[in-house]
């Protein structure tokens, strides 16, 4: 097991290298640069800025310098938010996004799993149809509709929640964004869980458990559920990576200072260092969570062995 984790971490290095390289050159292929704004800077100032940030160097030298800095944990300065380094931006925003994302994930897994089980146990009955209807709605209504509706109802009409803002992390400010983030995930998890639970309940070893006269609780929870959560485990890896690195829609609508906005904003502004920083963070989260999922898998399923 230890050897396996070590090997996976080792293979993550070339993966990261390829991702960083591709992203570095791709964003530079896009026309324009960080200092071509609509207002336009005077040529002298622009030349000065570019010289200061080394943008006049040959591209291979820029690449080598960037890699060198990255290896020393230095993401560089942000071109468009000159008061901050990229590292500082992440230090401020990432904890916020992670908090919201993690809460949404936990909520989605808890609620989605329970709904899925309820649906599976009442297959083709009222409980099942209600869950399916909810899941279909949850996955078809986009977040940019759900978020304003929550603001409208809970914020404006009933005045239960603040309409937006982070409020220095007050829990009441987190409810809206967490709900918005988790609803589509609840829908996906519930559907996945329903399907795998139905399949699990039909399997031969469940028939054996029933034939042995075991209680319904043991049949469903001990024998059917454990096998049925495996697809959820697989799904939660990439889902966690996506949720924890923030959502531009939710953070924009609720005015949350997370990192979800950076990717799009930075790409539009050609803020090279911030784009690269976001790519690195998302890639690391993805690799890490996939590894965690694979380890969890071995924990749940004794047939999976890494050696």
């Amino acid at each position, binding site marked *: 097991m230890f050897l396996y984790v070590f090997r996976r971490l080792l293979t993550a290095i070339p993966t990261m290298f390829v991702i960083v390289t591709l992203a570095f050159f791709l964003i530079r292929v896009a026309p324009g640069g960080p200092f071509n704004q609509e207002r336009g800077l005077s040529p002298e100032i622009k030349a000065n800025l570019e010289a200061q940030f080394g943008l006049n160097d040959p591209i291979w030298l820029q690449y080598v310098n960037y890699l060198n800095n990255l290896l020393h944990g230095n993401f560089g300065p942000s071109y468009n938010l000159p008061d901050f380094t990229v590292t500082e931006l992440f230090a401020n925003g990432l904890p916020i996004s992670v908090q919201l994302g993690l809460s949404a994930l936990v909520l989605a897994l808890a609620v989605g799993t329970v709904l899925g089980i309820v649906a599976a146990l009442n297959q083709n009955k009222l409980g099942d149809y209600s869950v399916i209807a909810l899941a279909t709605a949850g996955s078809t209504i986009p977040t940019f509709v759900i978020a304003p509706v929550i603001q409208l109802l809970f914020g404006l009409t009933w005045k239960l929640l603040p309409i937006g803002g982070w409020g220095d992390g007050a829990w009441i400010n987190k409810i809206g964004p967490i709900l918005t983030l988790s609803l589509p995930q609840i829908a996906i998890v519930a559907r996945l869980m329903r399907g795998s639970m139905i399949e699990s309940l039909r399997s*031969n070893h469940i028939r*054996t458990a029933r034939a042995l006269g075991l209680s319904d609780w043991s049949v469903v929870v001990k024998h059917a559920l454990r096998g049925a959560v495996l697809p959820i485990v697989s799904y939660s890896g990439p889902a966690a990576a996506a949720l924890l690195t923030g959502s531009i829609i939710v953070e924009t609508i609720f005015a949350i200072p997370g990192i979800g906005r950076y990717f799009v904003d930075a790409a539009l502004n050609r803020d090279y260092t911030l784009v690269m920083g976001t790519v690195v963070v998302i890639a690391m989260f993805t690799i890490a969570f996939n590894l965690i999922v694979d380890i969890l898998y071995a924990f749940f399923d004794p047939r999976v062995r890494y050696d």
Partner: protein
Amino acid sequence: MAGETILSVKDLRVRFRTLDGVVEAVKGINLHVDAGETVAVVGESGSGKSQTMMAAMSLLASNGEATGVVDYRGKNLLTLGKSELNKVRGRKISMIFQEPMTSLDPLYTIGNQLMEPIRKHRGLSGAEARAEALRLLELVKIPDPERRLKSYPHEMSGGQRQRVMIAMALANDPDILIADEPTTALDVTIQAQILMLLAELQRKLGMAIVFITHDLGIVRRFADRVYVMRYGEVVEEGKADELFANPQHDYTKMLLAAEPTGRKSAPADTAPILLEGRNVEVEFKIGGGFLSGPPMLLRAVDRISVTLKQCQTIGIVGESGSGKSTLGRALLRLLPSQGMIRFGDKDLSKADRAEMRPLRRELQLVFQDPFGSLSPRMTVGQIITEGLLVHEPSLSSKERDKRAVEALLEVGLSPDTRNRYPHEFSGGQRQRIAIARAMILKPKVVVLDEPTSALDRSVQKQIVELLRKLQADHDLSYLFISHDLAVVRAMSDYIIVMKQGKIVEEGPTEEIFGAPREAYTKTLMAAAIDETKFRLSA
């Protein structure tokens, strides 16, 4: 004790709600089980024999419904509440199933699964239950039981898993053990071991056994009384000896006559050699990849030589994993192999894909699975004429259609069937279609890979007869791969016995069956055709 009726089924009906309406799988049957006796419920697939017992145990699928009475010592199991029912299931009546590979929970250790019903029904402590589990594993003769308690199902063979299932079923000393095709999925030598174990346990523990089976061999050797089922009804019942000696119902007579019979005589010494393999070797790579070291090599076929003459049938027998199917495929060059393979005067071992293509029409293959080997989206006509498009592209569609009609008639199907789709046909009919697909190309050599294994005995016999007739009409040579020794004996004039990729023994059929030399062959033969009774009437 003996003679007292402990389970009686009265007017049991089982219905399933399906998309095509309500299907009645069991149509009002009556049967009973006395203490300590062995009852067999015999029938072919779809006879309702399994559903009868599933209904008795309240294990029907969710769209199924049972009416009538299943009386166990004064309690009607069909109307019992869940918790009352669970005091009978697994305690007084227990059940083992056909699929040992999937009937245990893959996520828990054997010990955990064995202890659960013991603790549930007898309220023992963990340590007591563990000691009991250990005793049970010893009872069903699992080697090294202490270690096996910590094993997971996937770490054990099919035979061992079935032993664990038996141990679980016997954990609470039941009155009745229902065994639903308990050995069908196992190799024949393992089958015999499991059956012997069941007989021995019955002598020791005295429970009644209900065998649900299609295998008359098992019935003959085990049962005191027999119920013969067809289309959801019991057509005949009686003492096993009497029923075998003097069957009354036509269906029973037909079942008894369905054991494959007849022998094949060897081809003349002067018959030309058609297909020849010298030192054929097939290796599979297992695992391997980036950072995980070199792959392991598994030698599935280990330097095997075969000579197939015109009109000859070579039976290749062996248990699962012996390499018999791999050998068949390697000889047709469907798998890369080492060694020399000749077909007529052509050296196949050096032929590439393009050179092989024209030869393919003379080297045909029929598979085991008549459900998976026909494309569900093509009509029967399209399926059987597809090979003609490749090998005789000059034929007009009218001529192809004519050939399809001939081929279907030849395998005993109506030519009208050629515009229908495979799902409309039964297993036996599909196997005929698969044979027609091979025959339409007028091949010289046909590899038959377990062509009858998925079929009921009565259908099996028809397919065997069809294959015989085709061989006589067209001077075909067969390579007949099977684990079913009765069929192999009826079909082949020469036998190769394989184990772990090697030939254990080979020779003319009567020699191999009459006087096997190797110990492994003897075990195999004893397991398959020995007719000694395991048990006399109680």
